[in-house]
């Protein structure tokens, strides 16, 4: 019953948004070069179906590659950084500094190193996505209650045993929460890189469409990006609920 209600309201609002958009475009006679109507965009998706699917798959693969890299590196670095509060405090400023560099700015450098194509896109996706993962895992580790640490140490627990039995499980809610954010960021990274330095992918498709003034196709690209983004977010949201169910209820909320 409750589940139902949770779906009804967002669905109504989403549909309402597109209906309003459609009506506004028609009533105000907005030029298709400025803002196409949703129906025109859907028609464009239909018309360019196979091309869009090809480029979407390319973007999806790029995003996933960057994301998987980000998960591996983020987890490892997060554990390293979170292993001791001293390392955490020491390394944090550098990490925040590096992270505040706009990732678009590194694409030209990646192009110099690796040429145009998939590699810079994967690396851009990776470089944006790994940060939230690392920070969350590290935070999950350093915020362990000191009393709990005392209990474990008084039992003769080694550092690695504390990490394995308590630290890692405890940081899992932080980790899974970060995946939702990271997948979106990886996606942004790969699309941005594709628009600048690639000859395939949704980002590339949108650039060429815009060069041809095919505005509906540009928006079709946006639609596809939004749909893929929502899909991936939902996937990780469900995964998070499944895996770390214990952190989502009652007053034991960890995140």
């Amino acid at each position, binding site marked *: 019953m409750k589940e139902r209600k949770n779906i009804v309201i967002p669905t109504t609002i989403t549909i309402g948004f597109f209906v309003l958009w459609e009506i506004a475009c028609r009533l105000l006679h907005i030029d298709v070069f400025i803002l196409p109507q949703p129906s025109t965009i859907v028609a464009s998706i239909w018309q360019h179906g196979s091309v869009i699917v090809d480029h979407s798959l390319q973007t999806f693969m790029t995003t996933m590659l960057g994301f998987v890299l980000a998960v591996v590196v983020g987890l490892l670095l997060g554990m390293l950084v979170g292993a001791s509060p001293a390392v955490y405090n020491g390394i944090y400023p550098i990490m925040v500094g590096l992270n505040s560099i706009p990732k678009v700015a590194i694409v030209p450098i990646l192009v110099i190193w690796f040429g145009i194509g998939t590699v810079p896109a994967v690396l851009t996706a990776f470089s944006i996505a790994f940060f939230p993962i690392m920070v969350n895992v590290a935070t999950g580790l350093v915020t362990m209650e000191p*009393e709990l640490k005392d*209990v474990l140490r*008084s*039992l003769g627990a080694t550092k690695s045993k504390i990490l394995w039995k308590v630290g890692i499980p405890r940081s899992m809610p932080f980790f899974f929460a970060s995946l939702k954010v990271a997948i979106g960021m990886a996606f942004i990274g790969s699309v941005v890189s594709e628009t600048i330095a690639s000859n395939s992918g949704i980002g590339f498709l949108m650039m060429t469409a815009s060069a041809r003034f095919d505005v509906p196709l540009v928006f079709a690209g946006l639609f596809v990006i939004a749909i893929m983004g929502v899909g991936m977010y939902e996937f990780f949201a469900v995964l998070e609920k499944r895996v770390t169910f214990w*952190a989502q209820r009652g007053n*034991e909320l960890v995140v």
Partner: protein
Amino acid sequence: MEDAQGGTSDFISIRGIDVVYGEGENEVLAVTEASLTIREGEFVAVVGPSGCGKSSLLKVVSGLHPVRKGSVKVRGEEVVRPVKICGMAFQNATLLPWRTALDNVLLSLEISEDYARDFNRKRREYREMAMELLSIVGLVDFASKFPWELSGGMQQRVSLSRALIHQPRLLLLDEPFGALDAFTREDLWAVLQRLWLELRPTVILVTHDLREAVYLADTVYVFSPRPGRVLSRTEIDIPRPRNLETTFETDFHERVNSLRAQISRPAAV
């Protein structure tokens, strides 16, 4: 100290210790010139104003924090690293939310070297040990519940069980019932007394509740405000098992009041 059999009966011997945190300007002297001697199987309560170094005392006895001066011996051996023979419980139950009550209790066995070695082989046996403890604390029916499904008092029972499952010879309790309501707290006094009577560990209980100290302890130490030193040592010879009736007797009240007088005296200066 020689006992009647001629052996040494000092299980814990603390001689003139200073406990210090921080360095240089930030140095805090938490405990000074404290000496205590604790027999094997004795139930000791430590009371004193907040911040007087009660928790620090537990930390040096368990070997989690070094002393600056003096000596701490457990079973005749100088404590220089975590002693591994102790169980601990705190005001905050610190249960692992991803584990059931039973698995939370088993955690100690997964970590304590003596048990961890055979954990997989003796899983059945260990589970039975844990269930037995859970039944003493009145939680058999809640063994498969997660911490968020348990009340504060129940969580504390699980925490006590986790502290005792590996049969530690030393149990260190830091205000374990401090966050509970009065009724639950008094229930847990009975639970703790029962555990102690059955398993007979040596207990050091830190509390700010004088009734709790008198109800549970053989010996009550009163600490001064920081830096903590031992102001007095009082033996409580009320027969056991004690129960709620005991707490209404004049004998009980007199002891509580005399402890209270010792605590408020230095504060009045």
